[in-house]
């Protein structure tokens, strides 16, 4: 009896491991270029020689996770990498687990990571022993704008109404984690417009932020959700939310949000704040290794699939690499450093 059951279980265990490897590793067909150099050292290697870990700092299903998986799918479908690119979730500590994991893979080109603004806020507020600019920059793939959202039946018709109300009394607002991008933007509004301090109620993800507003959960009356997060509550017959304005220099020109006023035109002069959807690699890659990844992500950016994905999710197309991307990182690091200092986020 034991033999039968034992073998059965070993078989199950084995088959699952097989499936796991087949699904993760076997997805991309081996390409002839995989066997370029026999055994290159870390410095001379210009192409990955084993599967690549595409590290994601959120849980499966979170914002960055969806973007990373979409990109990995495009890389796989168009055979842009000689080795499979495998999404790996390292959630925890608002990104600290993932950042540290990749940081410690110094000079290894098999580790790339998708980042958003927590790449700055988390490193600053948790006093991690490195900076965002220490990683090897690859490319920015899109900018995700912020809109100011209220309930569809809200008395506020424009950003001016909202600011007037915010000066009269503290408005309850919802956003993703504490001391992250949503709170950073609300604190900037508070600081710029001299409103009363917002009552900021942190949620677990962007989707639940929109849901919290739609249900007035705990008295929430406004959010700064991204266009894609608000979309399910804006479209269709059962409309629950509406955007008042966009924190962008220009109004959206295509899609369902066409013609939405900019916040700057309605009196809130903030038009330079986005969520970046950017790719970085482990620190200390050689220029050739960096160029390999820049080339891969340039091809992803140029693909029809990525164009459609950006369109579907109302992302601003924005490809940056090289010195341009490095300057962008430096500027955003400063923006977040200033907010963290001003609002005493670092203890």
């Amino acid at each position, binding site marked *: 009896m034991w033999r039968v059951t034992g073998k059965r279980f070993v078989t199950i265990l084995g088959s699952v491991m097989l499936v*796991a490897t087949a699904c993760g590793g076997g997805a991309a067909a081996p390409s002839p270029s995989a066997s370029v150099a026999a055994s290159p050292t870390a410095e001379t290697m210009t192409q990955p020689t084993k599967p690549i870990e595409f590290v994601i700092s959120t849980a499966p299903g979170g914002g960055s996770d969806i973007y990373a998986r979409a990109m990995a799918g495009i890389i796989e479908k168009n055979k842009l990498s000689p080795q499979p690119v495998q999404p790996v979730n390292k959630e925890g500590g608002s990104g600290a687990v993932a950042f540290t994991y990749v940081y410690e893979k110094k000079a290894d080109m098999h580790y790339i990571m998708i980042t958003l603004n927590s790449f700055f806020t988390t490193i600053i507020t948790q006093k991690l022993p490195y900076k965002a600019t220490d990683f090897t920059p690859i490319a920015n793939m899109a900018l995700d704008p912020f809109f100011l959202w209220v309930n569809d039946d809200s008395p506020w018709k424009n950003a001016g109404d909202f600011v007037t109300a915010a000066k009269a009394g503290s408005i309850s607002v919802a956003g993703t984690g504490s001391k992250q991008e949503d709170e950073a933007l609300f604190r900037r509004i508070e600081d710029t417009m001299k409103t009363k301090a917002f009552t*900021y109620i942190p949620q677990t993800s962007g989707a*639940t932020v929109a849901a919290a507003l739609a249900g007035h959960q705990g008295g929430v009356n406004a959010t700064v959700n991204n266009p894609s997060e608000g979309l399910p509550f804006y479209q269709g017959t059962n409309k629950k939310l509406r955007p008042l304005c966009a924190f962008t220099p220009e109004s959206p020109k295509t899609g369902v949000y066409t013609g939405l006023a900019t916040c700057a035109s309605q009196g809130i002069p903030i038009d330079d704040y986005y969520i970046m959807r950017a790719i970085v690699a482990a620190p200390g890659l050689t220029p050739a290794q960096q160029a390999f990844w820049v080339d891969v992500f340039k091809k992803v950016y140029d693909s029809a699939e990525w164009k459609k994905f950006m369109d579907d999710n109302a992302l601003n197309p924005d490809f940056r690499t090289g010195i341009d991307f490095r300057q962008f990182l430096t500027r955003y690091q400063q923006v977040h450093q200033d907010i963290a200092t001003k609002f005493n*986020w670092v203890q």
Partner: protein
Amino acid sequence: MEVFGLLAGGFATALQPINIAFLFVGVTLGLVIGVLPGLGGTSGVAILLPISVVIARGDIAGADTTTAVILLAGIYWGALFGGVITSILFNIPGEPWSVVLLFDGFPLAKRKGKPGLALTSSFLASFVGAFIATVLFTLFAKEIADRALAFGPPELFAVFVLSFATLVGLGAESPLKALAMLAMGLLLAAIGFDTITGSQRLIPFAGSEFEPLRNIQINLLAGVGFVPVTIGLFGIGEILASAEEQGIGYMEKISAKLGFKDLLEALGALRKRWFLVVSNSLIGFLFGVLPGHGATAASFLGYGLARQYAKNKEDFGKGEISGIMGPQATADAAGVASLVPMVTLGVPGSPTSAVIMAGLFVWGLQPGPLLFTEHSTFVWGLIASIYLGHFLTFILCLLAVPLLASIMRVPYAIITPFIVVISIIGSYSLNNSMLDVAFTVIFGLVGYWLRKMKYPLAPLVVALVLGDSTERELRKTLIAGAGNPAFFFSSTLSTVVMILAAIVLILPLVGAVRGRLRRAGVAADDTD
């Protein structure tokens, strides 16, 4: 009615050979993933996402996005059923939502020697729970999801308080020991990164220069996972304790009858508990619809309610069938319901449905209300596949019961090393982290010691699983209400649930006091 026409269309889609084939693949994989500890439904679905992209793209003739979602959802259904198998047979949770099955499932299988009955009861309750939830999904998805949006921090906190209230006194020969375990669980739950303040809590080695210590610190940011802890407490702890009690050569006295008799007995048990199973399924459905709270928390509430309804509270924790059927019906109903907000609102109801939703995005679909109008075939095909998937899983599970139950007759000395190995592999595979393995080993020893000292394990597990969410909702309520306690009663819903919780807490006290008075009265009569 319009809805039946649409559902019929959905069945026509789901019954296409290619869709049935992938449904079968999905639920089978889900069952295997469910059985293996550590590798959960959430990561199982994530592993298959790349394959689903290929399917959704139409590379396979006849397959489309509906096929892809049927495959992924099928994994979820399989895992919802399969997770309990490891809990019942080996005392280690196969899935987060089968942790609560450790309380009564393993005792019924091992101490009472009825593994077949334990498994069959659990599968039966899963099936009924899922069926009721799917019917509600079919008929009222949009209406219920809209209502669920109003469920904010005060309401959620009230529900968690109710969960705790129903579980007070669990396994408590000594109330003080139960309280100590509850406190330990809450303390463990507090470790990690606190999202409300954005700071680290109870984490040692911050800023250490020594790399291994720094790695521990970084990995602790994700908190102490309750799955590695319960694998240790129950799986390893039980092995150590029973090895000492009975010696290694010990063999279980497992009843020889297998097969149909178990099914008949389980059906009889279900008939006696129909009210419990139906009401728990309804509650599971309502709980599952709430964004962000899936089957795991629901299963604990389901267990607590089962215990509340029961007259024989002292039998819980010793192999009571209500302690299997109650949580299992709730968990499966909540699992099905967690797809409701995904389809209707574009908000995932549970971690696993969050991954399925990521799939929708990657395939080029926009989850949310427009799915019903613009992708009607997709939605109704998915709904029909939930009926079919659960039916298929149920049959597969019933067929496997005799074989699974016979594992319990294997000599203990042979099966023990095997359980230890899958415990260790299981906790490693959670996050590919050695820290989780360390937790399993440490809590294995702790579990052994706690058993010797007669401390109840259940309160610790309850506090560890529910502690984080309860605290988060409490603090969100306090922030939203600017510290005013009246905010806990700001809606009718939260007030009603809070009062229910208070009643559940106070009733046993009243009963105890009355019992004591009566006994005092009897004693007084005696002296006459």
